[in-house]
């Protein structure tokens, strides 16, 4: 049943990831050539079901669906804390009645897409659930890395900042360790998930140590909205002083190390504008472009069942 859906990187295998990246690579070329493939998903319905605000991911899926010829509908569901639960399963029943083929879900609760996947007939794609996973982000990051470094194994990748609240960090370290890279998580202990060091990554609280010799430096957004009372770091300026990625800290990584960020950025908090906008080192804009291609590959694979049936 999980083969019908993309709920997380957990459950994928290196050959499947490679196949997805290869397919996405073709879409990069196709997109750049201005051609479209509007017959692939013609007559299929894709619903973007977003329980949480998003501009970039939703637009990216919308574009991916449209380029493949799908009928794309965006649904933003306002969530009141009281009715969230009912909304989710009631929505599932509604979507079944609409004969939706592909359902892209973002939700602020870990496991919400998995719950929906049990109830809907459509293929569910997790577009970010709580602090759990964001698999298409990890795939687009992998594609960006592979295109720039020529490989997606044997690299040292530092993921920095608010690891605790980051579904991007989880999907990324799952994918990158699975493909044979060294992943370092860098941040203050209060923003590090419990026992994460037992999951195949190394944990660093010192940026110099964490960045030393890294091929890729990935900064994550400091998710102030998820921090409960009391705060997990004393202030944004203290965080920037010790963990904000600027030119000085980037110099600790390899000279050709690339800078990545899943967006949206808090400039001056986890990343300095000079680094984020550096035309040579930063591939942040390319990540966005890869996002559309990767999502086209995911949608095609799920809709046609080509990749998921071994």
């Amino acid at each position, binding site marked *: 049943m999980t083969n019908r859906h993309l709920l997380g990187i*957990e459950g994928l295998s290196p050959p499947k990831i490679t196949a997805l990246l290869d397919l996405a690579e073709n879409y990069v070329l196709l997109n750049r050539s201005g051609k479209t493939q509007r017959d692939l998903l013609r007559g299929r319905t894709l619903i973007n079901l977003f329980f949480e605000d998003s501009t970039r991911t939703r637009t990216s899926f919308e574009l991916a669906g449209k380029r493949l010829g799908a009928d794309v509908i965006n649904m933003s569901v306002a969530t009141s804390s009281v009715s969230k*639960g009912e909304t*989710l*399963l009631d929505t599932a029943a509604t979507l079944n009645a609409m004969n939706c083929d592909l359902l892209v879900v973002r939700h602020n609760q*870990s*496991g919400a897409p998995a719950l929906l996947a049990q109830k809907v007939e459509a293929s569910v794609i997790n577009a970010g659930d709580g602090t759990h996973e964001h698999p298409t982000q990890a795939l687009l990051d992998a594609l960006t890395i592979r295109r720039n470094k020529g490989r997606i194994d044997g690299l040292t990748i530092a993921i920095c900042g608010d690891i605790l609240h980051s579904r991007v960090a989880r999907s990324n370290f799952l994918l990158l360790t699975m493909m044979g890279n060294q992943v370092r998580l860098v941040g203050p202990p209060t923003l590090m998930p419990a026992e*994460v060091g037992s999951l195949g990554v190394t944990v660093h609280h010192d940026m110099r140590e964490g960045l030393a010799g890294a091929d890729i430096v990935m900064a994550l957004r400091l998710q102030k909205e998820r921090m409960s009372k009391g705060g997990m770091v004393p202030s944004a300026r203290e965080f920037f002083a010790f963990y904000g990625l600027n030119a000085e800290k980037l110099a600790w990584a390899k000279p050709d190390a690339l800078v990545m960020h899943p967006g949206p950025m808090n400039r001056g908090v986890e990343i300095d504008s000079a680094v984020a906008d550096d035309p040579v080192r930063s591939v942040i804009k390319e990540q966005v472009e890869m996002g559309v291609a990767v999502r086209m590959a995911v949608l095609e694979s799920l809709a046609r069942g080509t990749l998921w049936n071994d």
Partner: protein
Amino acid sequence: MTDFLVGDVTLATPEGLLRGDLLVRDGRIAGLGPTLGRPDGVELITAEGAILAPGLVDIRASLGEPGYEYRETFASAARAAAAGGITTIAVLPDSQPAIDDPALVRLIAARGEELGSVTLVPYGAATRGCAGAELAEYGLLKAAGAVAFTDGRRTIASSRLMRRALSYASAFSARIVQHPEDAELAEGGAATEGARATIMGLPGIPAAAEAICVARDLRLAELTGGAIHFAHVTTGEACALIRQAKDRGVHVTCDTAPPYFDLNETAIGDFRTYAKFSPPLRAEADRQAILAALADGTIDAIASDHQPRDADDKRLPFAEASAGGAGLATLLAVTLAQVKAETLTMHQALALLTEKPAKWLGIDAGVLRRGAVADLCLFHPEKSWLVEAGKLPGKAQNTPFDGRALEGKILGTWKAGRRVFG
């Protein structure tokens, strides 16, 4: 009411398992021992290979009523209890309204008497409305029949209030029952903190939250001379603290429940909300430690920890789903799995479900002896049955053991000599 003789059966007596007969007359045990012989006009009940035990005594369950009748009612819980061999239930007070008034205490007991198949022993609220702010009326509540005082699933969080509760309750020789989790550390948590919660992206509660609360309350019990009971202990660290405190003579007792010695945190994989509990399921090492503490006597009883929930409470994203499992029908069989595994002897397992909790509650039950009220549970330790959510007795179907084949089938339950199941 018919008199009957259960013939040629294994009797679970305080001295151990004995082969023999048990005679019930006028609702009481008229005799037990090898080959009693059947008097005229007495029905004979036989069951090859079965064990006759006292009716089980469950020291902690929520029954839904009053306030949550959509989850369970006294009547539906009584059916589940009878099917599970349980003849006495101590009922938690954190209902709606909370049981913080003598009239409400008497209501619970009276509803049990009306049902006739199960004795309901009421807990009183430790604080008014179980809200954690003001002491409840322990003296009046105890006089009305409250057996001990607790805020149920809610931790008595304030050290100052806990000190006063223990101190004041000691005047009435009453126990305070604590849900041992440091409230601030546990706030917002959905699973035990660790690699599993991390990979699932769930907010964690450190296992140490239990030991921190236990350590504080043990010290407060010593300070006040009060008596403390820890409900559903789940960690090795808490058991070690309680073991040491018992050795020093602190008035402390504790219990656990089947999910904590049968399951570990891996049961929540794939966001299975039916395995969401409060406190949450723990790491395997803690499960093992709970088994050791059951075997060495640190833990005084096994409770069903019955928390009825309906599908709408559970079919939610994990962190939003309600915690708790239905436990009445599976209490005996899940415990007997540890006899099969040779972690506990049959005698130990049954004592933890009958004699020890009855003694803790201070009630005349849980022992097979001449003259005692005939609350009985006849079961076959090797006969198996399948746990199926949707087909469990009673209203609550939220079992974490769905799909499990369990050995230990209840053949009959008697309340004061009247057959209420089988």
